[in-house]
């Protein structure tokens, strides 16, 4: 079968099981766009290449499949960069295909030429510049293999325009030959045996569930481990959805804005079982005072994560699901009643400071999030942005569902939520997908509202409008003498804006109107944007000041303290 380079790309995508690509056409991908309609591939036109990269990422996180985005050379390629870096930090498998100027023009500063393989070197798992048509089938095969195996991540393929035009007899390789890339999947048996012994001996064990649990599909195995050995589970932000939040053993999130009782548990545990997580500074706070009483078992597929941030007593390198499958039978059933009772007293103490337990008629963002949880019975696929809205979502939407939350954790990319939700909804068309986003983040990629409408995606978009870049404002309030420099932000009339784009727009200014608005939004068979005008200067608590120990949290003042 004789195919040109553009057709080879499409044919390879189909063979890799790709059904949808997110992209934006341009001069050096015009051949690729010419070939696309010949194949069974849905193309979603975003309004900016950044949106295409986030959408591919959102699609990957929602489905577990590789997400694909396409952009032209030069500005198209550079616009992908934030999206690629976001996927890289959160180990999300995406393939970014970019056009490059013709081989003869490379290095000549040609029109729309940019060294995108050079630019994306530090933010991809691997990348390719294809200047020879004969390399293209192999590169396509390798790229998918690298993106989805081991620790997943983004792979960029930069394809010169003349390569897209050239023709060869197409043959797709059946296997990859990558002698320098052999991810360890099965954990070392002796290490696993030791891990089981440590777990069996522990009195105050604690599991830290990270994104790796979700990426490897180990939610069943994790639950088995936790229930069998009676071990409480904390999730990182990216680990939310790896263990049911309403499970009696779940303590929610720990770290900078984690539950206080979760942080106390970390600091008091005698054994931490870190599973598919990387000890981000948002989780550990000051490393030297992190989990001082605990031995640490670290299970991760990436050997370079072992000992990177935190010294580890027992590493187990391997795919989380495989490791847990070997580990669980060696773990003995146990009861840790005293330990859980201790955590329960901390939990009760924490509840006194919960903002939802405060009597107030004011419209606050945590209330909105909790009502979305009630309305959707915890079954929505939530896509949150970055900042206060993200932390409140993580705290007040109780995620029981596997792959139930998509959010930019590592890079903390504002503007992520709307385009990522587009990808998520495309990937899971029958599910209810909600976006929670601040008035800052929505304005960063607001152009994608047009994509939502063009693709007829029934997204429900909740804008938590507090008139500030809230998280920075919170820092300014707490640490910079309330000098709100650069953080007050205005925005459009969101209801009019929604209507202008062709969505239903709703506005909520009173606490009492929240539930009816959510009900109405859910009844509308199409995209809805709801602006919640929430209290401006509300803070996310608890909070561990940057660089501080996680035992030293700023707590929400109690009512009686506020009176003073």
């Amino acid at each position, binding site marked *: 079968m004789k195919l040109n380079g553009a057709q080879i790309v499409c044919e390879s995508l189909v063979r890799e099981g790709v059904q949808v690509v997110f992209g934006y056409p341009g001069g050096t991908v015009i051949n690729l766009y010419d070939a696309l309609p010949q194949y069974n591939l849905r193309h979603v036109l975003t309004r900016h290449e950044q949106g295409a990269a986030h959408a591919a990422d959102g699609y990957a996180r929602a489905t577990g499949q590789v997400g694909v985005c396409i952009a032209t050379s030069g500005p198209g390629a550079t616009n992908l960069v934030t999206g690629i870096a976001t996927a890289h930090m959160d180990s999300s498998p995406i393939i970014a295909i970019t056009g490059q100027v013709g081989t003869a023009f490379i290095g000549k500063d040609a029109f729309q030429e940019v060294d995108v393989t050079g630019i994306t070197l*530090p933010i991809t*798992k691997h990348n390719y510049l294809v200047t020879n048509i004969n390399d293209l089938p192999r590169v396509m095969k390798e790229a998918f293999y690298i993106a989805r195996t081991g620790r997943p991540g983004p792979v960029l393929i930069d394809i010169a325009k003349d390569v897209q035009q050239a023709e060869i007899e197409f043959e797709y390789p059946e296997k990859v030959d990558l002698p320098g*890339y052999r991810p360890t999947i099965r954990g070392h048996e002796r290490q696993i045996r030791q891990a089981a012994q440590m777990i069996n001996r522990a009195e105050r064990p604690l599991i830290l569930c990270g994104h790796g649990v979700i990426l490897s599909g180990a939610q069943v195995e994790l639950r088995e481990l936790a229930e069998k050995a009676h071990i409480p589970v904390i999730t990182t932000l990216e680990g939310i959805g790896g263990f049911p939040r309403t499970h009696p053993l779940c303590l929610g999130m720990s770290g900078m804005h984690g539950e206080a009782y979760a942080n106390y548990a970390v600091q008091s545990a005698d054994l931490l079982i870190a599973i598919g997580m990387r000890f981000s500074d948002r989780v550990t706070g000051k490393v030297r005072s992190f989990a001082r009483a605990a031995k640490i078992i670290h299970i991760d597929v*990436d050997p370079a994560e072992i*000992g*990177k941030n935190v010294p580890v007593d027992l590493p187990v390198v391997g795919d989380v699901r495989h490791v847990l499958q070997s580990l669980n039978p060696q773990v003995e059933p146990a009861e840790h009643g005293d330990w859980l009772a201790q955590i329960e007293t901390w939990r009760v103490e924490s509840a006194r400071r919960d903002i939802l337990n405060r009597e107030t008629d004011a419209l606050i963002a945590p209330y909105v999030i909790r009502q979305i949880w009630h309305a959707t019975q915890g079954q929505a696929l939530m896509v949150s942005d970055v900042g206060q809205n993200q932390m409140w979502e993580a705290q007040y939407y109780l995620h029981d569902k596997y792959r139930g939350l998509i959010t930019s954790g590592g890079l903390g990319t504002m503007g992520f939520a709307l385009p990522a939700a587009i990808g998520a909804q495309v990937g899971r068309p029958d599910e209810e997908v909600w976006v929670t986003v601040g008035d800052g983040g929505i304005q960063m990629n607001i152009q994608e509202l047009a994509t939502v409408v063009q693709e007829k995606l029934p997204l429900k978009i909740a804008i938590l409008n507090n008139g500030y870049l809230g998280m920075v404002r919170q820092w300014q309030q707490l640490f910079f003498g309330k000098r709100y420099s650069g953080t007050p932000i205005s925005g459009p009339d969101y209801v009019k804006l929604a209507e202008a784009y062709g969505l239903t727009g709703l506005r909520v200014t009173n606490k009492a109107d929240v539930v009816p608005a959510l009900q109405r939004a859910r009844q509308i068979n199409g995209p809805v944007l709801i602006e919640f005008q929430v209290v401006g200067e509300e803070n996310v608590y608890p909070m561990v000041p940057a660089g501080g120990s996680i035992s030293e949290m700023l707590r929400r003042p109690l009512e009686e303290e506020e009176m003073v």
Partner: protein
Amino acid sequence: MKKTLIALMEDKPGVLDRVASLFRRRNFNIESLSVGHSETPGISRMTLVVDCQDEAQEEQVVKQFHKLIEVLKVTEADKVDSALYRELALIKVAANLDTRSHIIQLVDVFRAQVLDVSPTSMTIEVTGTEDKVDALVELLRPFGIKELARTGRVAMLRGNGK
């Protein structure tokens, strides 16, 4: 502490770029780097001397290095007892009728070679450990070193070690 790493990698465009980029972004300090063909066509061999803060950083360097797809093997030469280290230097030193014979004496002592002689200079090739090269450079310095080119360390394990 300086650590010597021997790496085998696929000889593909951009591989050196990947190594350099990795070391820069992870804040690892490269003391010297030397790369060339290995015994296998298509496989390059690199010797790196890295200045590490501690054991933990050394471990990170090796692991991060391994993550590069084109890197096939990384050996920590310091972890075996018997690695051979060599460096080559070309030294252009000022020399005239009066000093030439002094310099040649030093060259002989160091088993170095004179590659080129001009009325005002001599170019010397020396091979050896860094210490040996350093010693010759220091002895030649009083004569006036005009140019110095050093290759950086190359390393190989003794015997059948690979």
